[in-house]
């Protein structure tokens, strides 16, 4: 519709002004008014649908990708990396949304403007359109060259920014060390180098981009000058009228602008493509372990038996765990001890099926673990991970993660056993105290006790503690173990620990060394029979105490 306006304008000039027809001018003016109102309305409609479509599109992507990632098992999280998954769900989706919106707004218009403008221009005067045949390629060439030179420069700038961030982040996190060694000056030089590099890179790319504007403008203006010159000749030859030149200039502007718009899209689209690739990559990965409602129901976990269990991470060459044979029954405490990399955490991750074993069998109540409904199995296990993770909210909402409908009495009981009660009661708002993201407002030991309480609240049949007492002092550790023994006597307790004192009194101690069982038995037995165990005990300077 917008193409029509210059045309009408030309008519006013050609038929109205030159011939002196006032009524004609008025009627054309009226027609222009109607045309522009119609154009306005249609643009509103386009804008409504394009915003709905692009935002709806990103909403759907977000929903799909989050739903999909939620289904991932621990293995996938481990392989892909949590932070990468986060950026894919947030930044990458945003990037696509932005580009899609621009695409709908501009791209739909740009080709129409280009084609429409060209048709109208050629229609007005084909010969004069030859001016465009010169200026359009020049414009495209300029944009192409700028893109080709600019894109690698942008990459370099990004690298320099990362470099500066790295140095600064190290400086901020290591401030004590830097000051302790009095290396402030050295650090300043390090930062200054990065700072100079970044400024240099920025200067280059900015000057390139900034030079683009005047150059493009110049091409545009010279085109108009060309149109005026050759247009005058055409008028002289009687091939076109004066008003048409004015219309023609408008068309030329439209064409050139649409080209610039196109090129802008070509700069942004590759970014969206990179984001889209990263999202598609995620969507193509199927979760290895699916949590659904299939499988046999289970009332209570009474025994866990490992039979020749072996486990190998996908794509790893060597087994992490092999030939594991042991059992643990209701009411018993099984402790697992061993050096880092001996496979302790991997072992306990097999019980709630965070990973599936690659050989052997795990039997629950005498039946294979995989035959059971996984949701119910996980529902019967109270799990305390190595890293104490809390969610933002309050203490109550965090404890309710363990049991959705937990009452205050239940919370208090769990807190009492986990030795969290004492510090919760010193908080002003007690159980309603706010928990910041990641539980930052609590100390390591407090967080650990809360995660223990969260697991205890579940009335589970199995409790798994993955090195969960490490941030507790000896005294609290001892109290907690005593309370556990008394209060949850019926359950199976599996404790991974570094500290010998935490596990000395377990019913069974499993000594893990390089993925194999190096010893299995009580403290005294192992002291006599197991070399590895003795070594651990000695390293902790407990001998003879």
């Amino acid at each position, binding site marked *: 519709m917008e193409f029509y306006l210059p045309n009408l*304008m030309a008519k*006013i000039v050609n038929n109205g002004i030159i011939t002196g027809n006032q009524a004609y*001018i008025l009627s*054309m003016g009226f027609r222009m008014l109607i045309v*522009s109102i119609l*154009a306005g309305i249609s*643009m509103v409609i386009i804008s*409504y649908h394009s915003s709905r479509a692009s*935002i*709806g599109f990103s*909403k759907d992507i977000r929903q799909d990708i*989050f739903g999909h990632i939620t289904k991932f098992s621990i293995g996938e999280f481990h392989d892909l990396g949590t932070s990468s998954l*986060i950026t894919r*769900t*947030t930044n990458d989706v945003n990037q696509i949304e932005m580009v899609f919106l621009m695409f709908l707004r501009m791209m739909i218009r740009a080709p129409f403007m280009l084609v429409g403008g060209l048709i109208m221009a050629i229609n007005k005067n084909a010969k004069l359109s030859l001016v465009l045949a010169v200026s359009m390629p020049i414009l495209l060439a300029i944009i192409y060259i700028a893109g080709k030179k600019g894109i690698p420069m942008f990459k370099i700038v990004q690298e320099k*920014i990362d470099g500066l961030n*790295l140095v600064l982040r190290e*400086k*901020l996190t290591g401030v*004590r*060390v830097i000051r302790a060694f*009095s290396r402030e000056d050295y650090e*300043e030089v390090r930062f*200054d180098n990065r700072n*100079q590099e970044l*400024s240099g890179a920025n200067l280059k790319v*900015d*000057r390139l981009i*900034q*030079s683009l504007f*005047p150059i493009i403008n110049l091409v545009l*203006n010279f085109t*108009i*000058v060309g149109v005026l*010159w050759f247009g*005058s*000749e055409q008028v002289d030859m009687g091939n076109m009228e004066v008003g048409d*030149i004015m219309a023609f200039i408008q068309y030329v502007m439209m064409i050139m602008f649409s080209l610039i718009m196109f090129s802008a899209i070509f700069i942004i689209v590759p970014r969206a493509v990179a984001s889209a690739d990263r999202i598609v990559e995620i969507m193509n990965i199927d979760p290895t372990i699916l949590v659904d409602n299939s499988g046999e129901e289970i009332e209570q976990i009474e025994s866990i038996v490992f039979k020749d269990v072996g486990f190998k991470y996908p794509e790893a060459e060597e087994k992490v765990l092999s030939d594991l044979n042991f059992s643990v029954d209701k009411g018993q405490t099984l402790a697992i001890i061993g050096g*880092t*990399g001996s496979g302790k955490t991997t072992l306990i991750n097999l019980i*709630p099926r965070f990973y599936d074993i690659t050989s052997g069998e795990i039997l629950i109540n005498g039946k294979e673990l995989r035959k059971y409904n996984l949701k119910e199995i*996980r*529902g019967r*296990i109270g799990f305390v991970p190595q890293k104490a*993770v809390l*969610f*933002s909210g309050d203490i109550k909402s965090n404890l309710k993660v363990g049991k959705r409908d937990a009452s205050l009495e239940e919370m208090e009981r769990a807190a009492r056993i986990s030795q969290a009660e004492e510090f919760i009661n010193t908080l002003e708002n007690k159980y309603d105290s706010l928990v910041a*993201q990641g539980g930052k407002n609590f*100390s390591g*030991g407090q967080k650990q006790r809360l995660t223990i309480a*969260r697991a205890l609240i579940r009335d589970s049949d199995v409790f798994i503690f993955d090195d969960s007492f*490490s941030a507790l002092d*000896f*005294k609290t550790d*001892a109290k907690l173990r005593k309370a556990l023994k008394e209060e949850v006597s019926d359950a199976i307790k599996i404790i991974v620990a570094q500290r010998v004192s935490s596990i*000395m009194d377990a019913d069974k101690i499993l000594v893990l060394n390089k993925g194999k069982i190096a010893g299995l038995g009580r403290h005294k037995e192992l002291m006599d029979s197991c070399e590895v165990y003795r070594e651990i005990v000695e*390293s*902790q300077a*407990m001998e003879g*105490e």
Partner: protein
Amino acid sequence: MTGKTPTRNKAKENIGMEKATNFKGTLRRLIKYLASYKLALIVVFILTILSNIFTVIGPKVMGLVTTKLLDGIRLKAEGTGSINFGYIRNILLILGGMYLLSAVFSYLQRYLMTGVTQKVIYTLRKEVDEKLSKLPLKYYDENQVGDILSRVTNDVDKISTALQQTVPQLITSVVTIVGVLVMMLSISLSLSIITVLVIPLSFLATKRIAKLSQKYFIIQSNSLGKLNAHIEEMYSGHNIVKAFGMEDKSKEEFDETNETLYKSSYRAEFISGLIRPIMTLVDNLAYIAVAVLGGFLVLKQRISIGDVQAFTQYSKEFTQPIVRSADIINTIQATIASAERVFAILDEDEIFEITREEANLDRVKGRVEFKNVCFSYNKDEKLIEDMNILVEPGDTVAIVGPTGAGKTTLVNLLMRFYDIDSGQIIIDGVDVSNVTRQSLRKVFGMVLQDTWLFKGSIEDNIGYGKEDASLSEVEMASKIAQSDFFIKTLQDGYTTVLEEDADNISQGQKQLLTIARAIISNPPIMILDEATSSVDTRTEVLIQKAMKKVMEGRTSFVIAHRLSTIKNADLILVMKDGKIIEQGNHINLMKAQGFYYDLYNSQFAA
């Protein structure tokens, strides 16, 4: 470690409409940074004006061509003449020349401005960095790394963009508005009035729309922040999500927020998207009015046809900078808010440092004395009151206590990361407040639980402890620290580059490297943190051996977890709730049957 939350910062950034609390003051301060480039900026200013004047005159000159053309046609029709091509050529040559000059000026202006901007930004970043070295540790403890980082990168970046684009834009806008108005008035008063009348109309429309959409933009940025936080939490706590079967609940919560985000986003987008069609319509209205009225005026021979043509262009050029002014104002506001955040760092109180040392700590044997020391992190809560300890050269001091007892407080005081409120800390007879912090810290070596290493080679990391350390010195220290063995098993040995956060070596190995780093500085006094909970037993044996070596012949302060260290210590400081509640050696403390006695026995309570 905190501060690894880029997504959160992004979410905050999206709120955008931040207002500065002291707009004028901050602006003035920002301008001060530009003041050293006065000359360049004046040139930029002149160039911008020149470049714009030519663009403003352009349409009027173009109009001359059209008018001449029409005259020629008339003459031709009357048979009395023809189109004056010589005249037209001249005009077009002038026009082309003007455009060329305008482009050259514009290019020069941008070239200069880019240079100035980068220099200012470089200075700003440098100043912030230098300031950071002068800030007390308190500042670091109270502010999040992510926040400071975001100020140095995002906020400084915003200022850079604003300087580069907004400032010339502002000049251009003003020049264009004034210039175009002058040109329009020179052509026709009545046509000018019509064009100017349209402006309040479009202004009002934009303002209304902006206000309408703002509501949705706020909901949008809030829900986006919420959504990102949820994603971050659920992904980083994914094993909890699995273990506790939270998948469905998490998905429900996500979908709910996502829906809110969707609704507010598309409304915000749509409403703000209305500005364009409305502006176009208003523009077109002016265009039509100019065309029709201009037509009449030409008929009445009040103006020429070329003037009408010029006028249609002027009316467009006139509204554009006005429409853009809303954007410019927003950008300036956001920029000032950013600048304020950056300046806030520069305004923090610096540590007071003496300029002339009244004593020196060149030959320290390692006698440390606390005399009536009082200290508190904040005034309301006294932490250490009237503390007196005496440590003889070569002594080992064990600091024990439950988690969160504030054992690092003592380290903070010894290293003067924090200053004591009253009393004296005396090293070999020298009051530590009589020497600079730098000289004091040279006396100490420190191995903390937080194994900070930087991205760089192992050699550089160990050598960090001593300026210009040679490779043989590094190797020697590394041997004492028991790290030589594992380094040699690495493919590149000492030149192995540690990644960010040294993720390519184990926690225990990191610890060994930090010990080596402390050894190479060969300090008379050592501060050690023994915690090794995440280290496997074999490495632990090595660490223990290394620590023992480090402590030999030195005064050592050890945050102790190991009984052997504690029992053999010459002095045990028992801490609880930030205070030193007991001190003495093992035998004395056991006899006292106090807190230490309980702590010690609880180890065997099970």
